[in-house]
């Protein structure tokens, strides 16, 4: 067990280093920070001095190590536009995004786990077909189109939900106000995730239902409900953990577009405006952060696997 976790962490370390290299390479590819300073009033000599001051005259790999050293001390560089530190900018936008992602993940699981299990238990019934068809629809609707439909329905026609922001302007906000603003973004994110989750949990559950220990459980005569909810569901934890692990990168990606549509003041909105103004230190900071979070998410998923299913071993 301990050996498995240790091995898994050792594999993650070169990947983490590789992620920083890719991140740095993209940032270099995007252009030198000096280009932003160039203008008619900036002399060649001033540029040269700035270049030496920023260490840009040194070979690329030395620049990389200098950057890495700064990174380890928590310095992710400074925004070209606002001159704020990238870590402070990320810190101030992280909360709303985590709130949105967390609630969406929860809602999608609350939808997908019962639906997937129902569908597997009643395989080939009308209900099963309906669930599978709806799940295909959920994963096939582009998030931004579903957002437009929802805004059209709830904001324009019914006038019950606000279409943008996190709190109503001019009011103090409060949990109820934030919740009202969250309904539509959460619906969109949860729908796209629940679509693939339902099918994954259904097929995993179908496999579990064919296992010998379930036949034994049924033969004991303890009743259908007990068999499914005590024996099968416990074993379905493994696919559910997998689903959560798979969702993390999707959540980050989905949040970028959804935050843009609903003007949700989180990391995604910040990233999109940084992309618009080509503020590469901010963009790459977000990239690095999300890549590290995804990597850690996978690591935790694998470790939880081993905890949930003792038969899993690293080959």
């Amino acid at each position, binding site marked *: 067990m301990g050996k498995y976790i240790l091995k898994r962490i050792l594999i993650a370390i070169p990947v983490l280093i590789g992620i920083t290299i890719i991140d740095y390479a993209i940032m270099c590819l995007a252009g030198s920070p000096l280009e932003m300073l160039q203008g008619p009033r900036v002399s060649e000599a001033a540029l040269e001095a700035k270049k030496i001051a920023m260490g840009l005259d040194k070979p690329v790999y030395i620049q990389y190590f200098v950057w890495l050293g700064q990174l380890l001390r928590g310095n992710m560089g400074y925004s070209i536009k606002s001159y704020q530190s990238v870590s402070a900018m990320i810190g101030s936008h992280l909360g709303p995004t985590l709130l949105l992602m967390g609630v969406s993940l929860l809602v999608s699981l609350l939808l997908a786990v019962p639906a997937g299990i129902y569908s597997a238990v009643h395989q080939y019934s009308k209900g099963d077909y309906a669930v599978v068809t709806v799940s295909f629809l959920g994963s096939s609707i*582009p998030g931004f189109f579903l957002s437009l439909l929802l805004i059209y329905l709830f904001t324009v026609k019914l006038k019950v939900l606000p279409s943008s922001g996190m709190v109503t302007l001019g009011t103090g906000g409060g949990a109820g106000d934030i919740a009202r603003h969250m309904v539509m973004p959460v619906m969109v994110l949860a729908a796209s995730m629940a679509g693939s989750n339902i099918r994954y949990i259904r097929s995993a559950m179908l496999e579990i239902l064919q296992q010998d220990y379930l036949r034994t459980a049924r033969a004991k005569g303890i009743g259908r409900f007990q068999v499914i909810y005590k024996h099968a569901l416990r074993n379905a934890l493994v696919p559910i953990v997998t689903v959560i692990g798979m969702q993390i990168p999707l959540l980050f*990606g989905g949040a970028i577009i959804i935050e843009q549509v609903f003007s949700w003041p989180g990391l995604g909105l910040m990233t999109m405006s940084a992309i618009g103004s080509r503020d590469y230190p901010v963009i790459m900071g977000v990239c690095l952060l999300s890549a590290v979070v995804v990597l850690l998410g996978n690591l935790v998923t694998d470790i939880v696997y081993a905890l949930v299913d003792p038969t899993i071993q690293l080959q």
Partner: protein
Amino acid sequence: MGKGIVFMKNRNKEKKKKEMVTESYLQTVFRRFKRHHLAAFSLVVLALVCGAALLAPVIAPYEPEAIVGPFGGAPCREFLLGTDQIGRDVLSRLLHATRISLLVGIMATVISTVIGVVLGLLAGYFGGVIDMVIMRFTDMVMSFPYILLVLVAASIFQPGLWNIILILGFVDWPGVARLVRGNVLSLRETNFVKGNIVAGMPLRHILFSEILPNTVAPILVYATSVLALSMLDEAALSFLGMGVQPPMPSLGNMLNGAQSLTVLTRQPWLWLPPGLLIVLLVVAINFVGDALRDALDPNSEKR
């Protein structure tokens, strides 16, 4: 001499096998595919939409970029789906947009599948250091949220049709690589591959003529989901203004206008048709992929 005899025996065996099984592999696949009514229906829908997209220059009533009618006119007999804000025919643009979006989806899928297959074959077959390097690199690329990577790439390179295709193609291969590697790992242990190695067959032959044909089915199924995802991503990118650039129409950038409240509330004919068409196409592709998975699976009859 000895080799020749073995060869003859193999020939005979093949003949016998063909006599025994009256149905060819493709026929079996087709018969199983037809059992999925929704998928069969989806295939018809896809064929119709693709046909319309291919014939767009012939059947579109107007030029897609020509200004032919009133600004933001509602659907009428002359303009079946109305006209957009600057007086272009929405139906003509929709037909051409479908063509562009399908082109992006298909090309991006082909590129990412080829990259993924080659890397997966190499990693799975050689193992050891090559496998480790390729798979760790795959892990790294997979760690970056896909759409973020695409957005960053789109902001570095000029957005445009071919750049979008290349970006989507070069970002979407890790899944295919993992799938192929897993299949190759199990195929490498089979007797027919071992036999080829012992017989001293060239590597090229073993990889491409023995191993690859046996992984085509799962690759094909996976490619359908990549196709669906690439089309969704193209739409999202173009919607955000970082994909296919106007005046060239794509299903995503036709929806771009709906970000303004007037279009959203007063001119639904501008954003509903392209949005519904994306959903229709992606749902149909997913259904076909799902039925294909079932039809190509050699074990599906036993269940």
